[in-house]
């Protein structure tokens, strides 16, 4: 689980933020901003929406400082972020479906070695975009954020069996997508 470093300092900052210390709240945001923004970015697929969601999540945290336990803050933030992403996706138009790996621009002979950062990002973005929302959330939290299946189930409000099934399906789809991409390049 990608818990920010030095949780003790985080707890102290959270307590100070509860007492009304804005600088302490800024510290809390700095500790968890990557967790929130990157999760949102993977789930909604674009930075402007991810930033809007991050803003909403941290404002919600500020309003609920006295209700959120320091020990479960990461889990709380993941859950609120996933829900906010769900709301955003529901409001917005559906994304264009990803049908062909040909959308990935590359003509290198050995993609595994020469693949660039930009390509990796593009592969990640497109492969996540083709997944249904629940499978995407489960895969992002489990495989990219490194949470346990139990934590993912808790955050998504599902059973572990459901989460395992979702992750399994998502992995198969992504593997097929990436394999098609590299087959084409050989």
């Amino acid at each position, binding site marked *: 689980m990608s818990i920010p470093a030095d949780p003790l300092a985080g707890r102290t900052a959270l307590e100070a933020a509860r007492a009304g210390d*804005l600088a302490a*709240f*800024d510290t809390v*945001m*700095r500790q968890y*901003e*990557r967790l929130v*923004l*990157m999760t949102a*970015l*993977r789930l909604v697929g674009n*930075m402007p929406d991810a*930033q809007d969601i*991050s*803003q909403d999540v*941290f*404002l919600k945290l*500020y309003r609920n400082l006295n209700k959120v336990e320091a020990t479960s803050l990461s889990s709380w933030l993941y859950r609120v972020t996933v829900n906010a992403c769900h709301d955003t996706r529901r409001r917005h138009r559906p994304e264009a479906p990803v049908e062909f790996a040909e959308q990935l621009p590359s003509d290198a002979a050995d993609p*595994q070695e020469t*693949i660039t*950062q930009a390509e*990796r*990002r593009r*592969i*990640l973005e497109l*492969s996540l975009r083709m997944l249904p929302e629940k499978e995407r959330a489960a895969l992002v939290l489990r*495989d*990219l954020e490194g949470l346990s299946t139990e934590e993912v189930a808790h955050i998504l409000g599902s059973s572990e069996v459901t989460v395992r099934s979702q992750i399994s399906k998502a*992995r198969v789809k*992504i*593997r097929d997508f*990436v*394999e098609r991409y*590299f087959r084409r390049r050989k």
Partner: protein
Amino acid sequence: MSHNDWEDILRAAHAEPIDPAHYTAVRARVMAEIERSRRPWRRLAWISGVGAMAAAILIAIALHRPEVPPLAPVAIAIPPAPPPPVVRPRPMEIAHAQPAPRPHREPLTIKFQTSDPNIIIYWIAD
């Protein structure tokens, strides 16, 4: 491609750092929103503070108002009525008011006889 290959690619992509300006922008927006949401409370607190202070001042004034001595009983002195003016009676009035005693006389009685023998009129003059 093995399972680990594609998973490594995705993890590597996910782990790539992003421009710190994205985080800074989010933090700045959050802090600005918090400041904005705090302002009405500050104004309300300021107004209620002023109101409380005014009320305290009014109460203090009411409690520490200088003692006003009770009004002295007002003695209502009604001056005695002035003596009635002495009116000297005019000589004629005196004469009427105080007739001189006259000597007692027998009243003058006049008897009238009418055509009707049953009716007799007596006229007594004093």
